[in-house]
């Protein structure tokens, strides 16, 4: 963790640089300036600051204000990730439990976050995915020693990635996703967000399995050429 220039200004910035999300994030920040807000100066967001700095701040300083900001940004996404799971166990209660599980884990594991391996949103997505998987396994009373964290380990010692490189990759993926044909984006959404396997997507949409596969191949292939 080499990022040392954590400024208070970084707290108000989101990873996506689109004006909409910045607007949202500033908006919600202003609305949530309740009891636990201290004299933090909310400066204008700058491009180099992101949720990663906030996570590092949470890890280093156990900063509850920073955690509150992270919560306000990610909790709705986690809840909707829970709600959109196509499963007999999906319910608003389950989605809220998921928010609790994930955010608690973020708090407890913040020191494990390494900005050189993944962005904050990727790190939080993998936590949400693992918690959601564990939740289903618990609901289905699956009896095993293995937890989702064993099967989907967090990023290990790998690349000589720099955070800049990592950020560039994610930005490229982000742009590429925005340009995907709707039918390819739809298949990816069903797989990642609704939690369907390729064959379940085929069953749900009536598309032949081969078509589902070729859409995934095309979409992911397109992303890979940009990396």
């Amino acid at each position, binding site marked *: 963790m080499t990022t040392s220039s954590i400024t208070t200004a970084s707290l108000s910035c989101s990873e996506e640089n689109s004006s909409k999300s910045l607007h949202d994030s500033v908006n919600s920040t202003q609305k949530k300036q309740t009891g636990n807000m201290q004299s933090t100066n909310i400066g204008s967001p700058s491009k180099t600051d992101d949720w990663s700095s906030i996570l590092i701040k949470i890890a280093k300083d156990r900063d509850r204000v920073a955690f509150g900001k992270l919560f306000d940004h990610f*909790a*709705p996404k986690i809840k909707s990730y829970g709600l959109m799971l196509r499963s007999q166990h999906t319910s608003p209660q389950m989605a809220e439990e998921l928010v609790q599980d994930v955010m608690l884990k973020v708090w407890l594991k913040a020191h494990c976050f390494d900005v050189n391996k993944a962005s904050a949103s*990727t790190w939080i997505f993998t936590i949400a995915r693992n918690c959601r998987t564990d939740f289903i396994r618990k609901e289905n009373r699956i*009896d095993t*020693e293995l937890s989702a964290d064993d099967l989907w380990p967090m990023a290990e010692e790998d690349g000589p990635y720099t955070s800049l490189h990592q950020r560039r990759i994610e930005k490229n993926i*982000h742009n590429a996703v925005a340009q995907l044909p709707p039918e390819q984006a739809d298949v990816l959404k069903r*797989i*990642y967000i609704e939690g369907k396997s390729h064959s379940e997507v085929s069953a749900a949409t009536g598309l032949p399995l081969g078509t589902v596969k070729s859409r995934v191949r095309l979409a*992911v292939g397109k992303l890979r050429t940009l990396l």
Partner: protein
Amino acid sequence: MSHRPDIHWLTDYAAGTLPSSQALCVAVHLSFCPESRKQVEQLNSLGAIMFTNAINDDDNLISESVATELPDEDHASINQELRSKVFDLIDKEDIKQQPSSVTASPCANDASNKADLLPHCLQKLIPDGIDQLDWKKLGTALSVARLSAGDDSREVALHKIKAGGRVSNHDHRGREVTVVLQGSFSDQNGLYLPGDFLVKEAGQEHRPIASEDAECICLSVLEAPVKFTGPITSLINPFLKIKTGTP
């Protein structure tokens, strides 16, 4: 590494939709294969973007003008109660834990702490090492040790072929996923080394032969019983016994 899971396996893995037993095979493969690990990292990033976009898609259903009129709680769909609950939880955790132990709790999986050198994800299932498993002989060349991986509809097991041993010709009534852990074997399609990942679909026959120099140990996950096609081995077909109610 020449035998890797294809993009569909890796996407289902990154999205978390693979059954746990098959995810286990991919995880074992990943512990050997930096190339696949890199691909999974990219697929995780893709997942994160789908994840952060998902809620925006929902927002788009509400027109901009309506959205701004909604109370904040409705719009964000997170109520203050849940927020307080989470803050209570972290307070409790912080009281429970000594400040020093917060930073001391483990992060990455440390695979190098076992003499066995098993991939981390297998260590929990095989805590005492491969030799201590309950191995059952299935003929002269092949032994099997079942693992409990929490998947009732699939057979999860280690298979051991002795050095130079030949496994009877068999086909599959269901898909079989195999990852090589130690040693190597070959079949009509090629040579498989540690970390190699192969999928045999139902109906595909093959006849694995372990390399002469060492025994070969593989993790395999089978969707339905294997059917041995050789003349004698039908007597010792292992998986027919395991699946109760299957003829």
